């Protein structure tokens, strides 16, 4: 078995796949720099991310994977889970070695692992589309911050841009310290120097907000309470749909 160490980027991971073939490696264990614990006996091979090599592998994969599987590959990568790098490497080699269509083999451990992890990331993305609560600021920007389990921000622009085409908005990931800003024309990545803290009352200070903001968040809390039917109360179902770790996002759960 050979040990490969890469920088944790998608380009690096694809470069690693390329080098498996270049170096005629058999069994490879792939770890990212961040998770690598130096070993006295096994120095390991350092993969240097290479745009051209990465591109060739990606092109090769795209020949054999449909759009949905290409997206699954990317989504699994965004999970940031250390064990998924190994699955992605093995999955890529399996797909390249087999004739097209091999991604349907759900009995294969790497195919299954990628499809299940992609599903988890997809669900987190979908939750962000549901649970983001914008607050309108005094200068007319709609602002929300999040702390998603996975790095789903790169998956969000299309959805929010299509929907909120005529308003400026920011969605900021406090955990990973970067955000998205839509300026009525395009969405860009931004860093905030002084990002607010995620707190129990997930709100910006009142002096930063639009004068109507308080009214609408009150009305929303009222609506949430009135539309409930007490005779059907079912907290288990409620918590299954809205797990407690997301309550901090939801202004209706703060009232």
């Amino acid at each position, binding site marked *: 078995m050979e040990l490969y160490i890469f920088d944790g980027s998608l380009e690096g991971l694809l470069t690693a796949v390329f080098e498996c073939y270049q170096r005629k490696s058999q069994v490879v264990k792939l770890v990212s720099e961040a998770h690598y614990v130096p070993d006295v006996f096994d120095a390991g091979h350092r993969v240097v991310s290479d745009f051209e090599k990465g591109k060739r592998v990606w092109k090769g994969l795209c020949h054999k994977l449909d759009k949905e599987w290409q997206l699954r590959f990317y989504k699994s990568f965004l999970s940031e889970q250390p064990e998924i790098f190994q699955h992605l490497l093995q999955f890529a080699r399996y797909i390249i070695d087999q004739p097209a269509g091999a991604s349907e083999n759900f009995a294969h451990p790497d195919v299954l692992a990628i499809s299940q992890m992609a599903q988890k990331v997809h669900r987190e993305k979908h939750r962000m589309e*549901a649970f983001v609560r914008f607050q309108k600021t005094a200068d007319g920007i709609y602002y929300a911050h999040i702390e998603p389990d996975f790095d789903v921000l790169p998956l969000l622009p299309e959805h929010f841009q*299509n929907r909120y085409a005529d*308003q400026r908005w920011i969605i900021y990931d406090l955990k990973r310290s970067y955000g998205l800003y839509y300026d009525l024309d395009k969405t860009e990545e931004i860093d905030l120097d002084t990002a607010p803290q995620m707190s129990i009352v997930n709100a910006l200070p009142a002096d930063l907000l639009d004068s109507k903001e308080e009214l609408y968040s009150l009305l929303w809390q009222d609506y*949430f309470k*009135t*539309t409930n039917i007490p005779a059907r109360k079912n907290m288990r*179902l409620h918590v299954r749909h809205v797990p407690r770790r997301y309550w901090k996002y939801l202004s209706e759960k703060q009232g």
Partner: protein
Amino acid sequence: MYERIREKLGILADAAKYDVSCSSSGSNRKNENKGIGDAEGTGICHTYTEDGRCVSLLKILLTNHCIFDCAFCVSRRSNDIKRAAFTVEEVVELTMNFYRRNYIEGLFLSSGIFKNADYTMERLVRIVKKLREEERFNGYIHLKTIPGASEELLHEAGLYADRMSINLEMPTERGLKLLAPEKSHAEVEKPLDYIQNSITKFESEKALIKSVPKFVPAGQSTQIVVGATPESDKEILYTANTFYQNFSLKRVYYSGYIPISYDARLPIIGSQPPLIRENRLYQADWLMRFYGFKVQEILNDLHPNLDADVDPKLSWALRNLDQFPVDINTGDYHMILRVPGIGVASALKIVQARKFGRLYENHLRKLGIAFRRARHFIRYADSPMQLKDYEAGHIKGVILAESKSKYQANPHNQLSLF
């Protein structure tokens, strides 16, 4: 200064909440005018109330004043409650401001009937027209069809709404006449039919001319109240099935009756809503729509009601053990779909994966099927040798002993004394 609007929203959201539809999917309205909102594709549940129901749309009545006196309805004329009415501007403001903050997918607008049907429908249409044309709102709009409204108004409504619905309320004409003598199923069928025909007409024109406007792109739905009148599950599902077939409905909703009246014709206030029964009806509805079951297979004169202790798919399998076991590695897809414990997604994965090699127990477990339930009905590459056929009662006993029902002996919203 907030008190007035807060009180109105309180009254008119409370009165609207018994309409259970919350779907915001199935439309194809894209944000093409750089406006606000996008109703394309799958819906989003933005939150869930403490009763576990999804909140996707701002669901309100324009007013709860009503000239009718339907015994099952909280807004009935004879009920002594606070009445309120929104202005057109108030509904538009609420919708836009909730939508811009990502609280909702759109608006579900219904109304009590004041003055007459056309007067009410005309107000509803005015709101949705303002949303679409002045606010350039492309979010989802579910609009109630007011029975008896003119075809001109229905036509205009259909040009702005994504979905329209009109409720059957009681599963049979007999039940409806008992509780709402002023209403009939016929006056529900008429607008359903008119709108369905228009949808078909617009679709066929669209095939020829690209610029044909949208007309109720997410289709129509209806709602049946369960447990207010004594109909059997068979009567309920047969009615649903007829309406699915005759009017191409997207959904039939089943609403367990929540007692809201001391009327002697109805269950008394404080009695438990029939939640298990409602759940079983939805499961049966899914079997008809996604699993290829005919309604006659699920319910018939021998079995006029759904089992409370097991779901209808398991119930069907236990009654038809001669059709099992199904061999996972060779069986027909439609038969695999009928195995209790295997859903649509798993069934698809199974037929894809088996092209690459025979499937064993560990594959099936990892694929995510409910193996402990399914194992009684399937054969796979390493199935254990089975010397005798088990009978239905035995299998049911094993499954019930192994699984903990989500329905406890006491409903969990009822306080326990000890």
